């Protein structure tokens, strides 16, 4: 079981890095956000300095990478569904969950690389964060990414079509992004938006991330976000593994 999981994770990683340009682009994207978006937000943040803006925006951008980077990883699965390799693995003696979990694990590894890069840039720009908070932020990000990756694999195996998949993702992305206060804190939003924001799980992750970057370890948003995303991640991961049954009984 574990051996197959390691095997598939390694295979997927090798595949991702066989052409180093694409993962590099993927890693650069959040850094670009940080460099170009934080200065824009400067005037909106209380305090008004770039560091204050970064303290707001770094956790948000980390959650953004976690969700939106992983949400697209299911596209690879659709290609493999089409070229028959998924079916081939399903007939092999491989431990079936490993076929999907290997991809999820690969997404996690990529995510950690991206997170470290973002943190390095943020620190270089003057943001400071404590050790415990750092570990918690990374853990929260991993749980968020796990949720998104599981969702993406499950969606891919259910929708089975690139067009349908990208339409579905687009439909959900904008409201989830805005209602999480990723770019613009939700406190700027009108009352009705503020009222429905807590329904969006990502809102809690961003709030918790900001609390951690602000050094407020006792903030109630932290346990809420962890509980929420651990449950969601478990659910979507199970769903993605079960969706494999659609291609193989």
């Amino acid at each position, binding site marked *: 079981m574990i051996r197959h999981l390691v095997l598939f994770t390694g295979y997927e990683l090798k595949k991702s890095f*066989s052409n180093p340009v694409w993962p590099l682009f993927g890693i650069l994207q959040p850094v670009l956000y940080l460099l170009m978006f934080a200065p824009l937000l400067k005037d909106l943040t209380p305090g008004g300095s770039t560091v204050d803006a970064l303290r707001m925006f770094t956790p948000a951008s980390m959650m953004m990478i976690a969700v939106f980077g992983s949400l697209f990883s299911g596209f690879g699965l659709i290609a493999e569904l089409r*070229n028959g390799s998924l079916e081939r693995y399903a007939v092999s*003696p491989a431990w079936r969950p490993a076929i999907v979990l290997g991809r999820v694990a690969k997404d996690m590894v990529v995510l950690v690389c991206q997170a470290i890069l973002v943190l390095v840039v943020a620190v270089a720009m003057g943001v400071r964060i404590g050790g415990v908070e750092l570990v918690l932020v990374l853990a929260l990000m991993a749980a968020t990414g796990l949720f998104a990756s599981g969702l993406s694999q499950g969606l891919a195996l259910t929708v089975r079509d690139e067009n349908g998949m990208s339409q579905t993702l687009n439909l959900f992305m904008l409201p989830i992004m805005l209602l999480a206060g990723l770019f613009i804190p939700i406190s700027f939003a009108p009352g009705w938006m503020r009222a429905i924001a807590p329904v969006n799980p990502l809102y809690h992750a961003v709030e918790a991330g900001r609390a951690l970057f602000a050094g407020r370890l006792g903030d109630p948003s932290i346990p809420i976000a962890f509980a929420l995303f651990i449950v969601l991640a478990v659910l979507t991961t199970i769903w993605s593994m079960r969706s494999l049954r659609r291609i193989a009984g």
Partner: protein
Amino acid sequence: MIIEARELRKTFTTRSRKGSQTVEAVRGIDLDVEKGEIFGVLGPNGAGKTTTIRMLATLITPDSGTAVIAGHDLRAEPGAVRRKLGYVSQAGGVEDTTSARAQIMMAARIHDVADPRQATADVLERFDLTEMADRPGRTLSGGQKRRVAIALGLVHAPPLLFLDEPTTGLDPQNHANLWDRIRQLREAGTSVLLSTHYLDEADVLCDRLVIVDHGRIVAEGTPGELKREVSGDVVTLRLDEPERAAEALRPLAREVRVDEDALRVYVDDGEHTLPALLRLLEEHGIALRSIALDRSTLDDVFLAKTGRSLRDTGAAA
């Protein structure tokens, strides 16, 4: 017996706006495949060939029926069945971005092959793929891709290989090349179950075959047996005294028909009947102007069993 399947059935339900529709893809199929033989499933598109292979490969669960594959029960021990199988789907299963070598090595590792690197190199060599082994899958030609697909199914040296429409989409030269390679499998002792809608492929390649139509087996046997059973061979003779010749040859033939100046003699086995036939004509002193031996094809078998020609079902041959 490497495959022993009884009464396999599968019905699919498709849901659409117009309501649900059920399709009986496979309606009770029995298969007995001997160790070491190339066994064919011939039929038009939609006859249930792929569904049958997918059931035997543990990809879909039959609604009813049983199967024992390489000594393991399909329902009770799907895991054990998978370890004995090589499976090459119609799509092939060759990934676009990874090299053939990496994919085959991965397949070898999943199957716990003792020396995956060596096994990969061997199977690449065997299928003349060494030169393009490190190119990404998407850059390979159709024929090369198909060879990689088969190599992927064979790297763990399974006793049984499933080939679902192995030559569909390939040009005629590649057909012949692939047929040679599939025949070599038999020499290596690998049992092969292959589905096809090409008459010549089934005829040339298979030791035994079943012809399926609408989810049922309509005929079973060796290609030779099947053709003999239905229409046999036909010897067309041109001679001066057809009526007298017809009388003389009747003991050898299943049926004798006089068509104007030609005499058509239907026999079970043309090749072996021909010398006796010639001897009889000689004994009766009948002069022969020309003689032709035509073989009935598997399409004649399909025609006799279903009332349709396989060529008319959209499956070119």
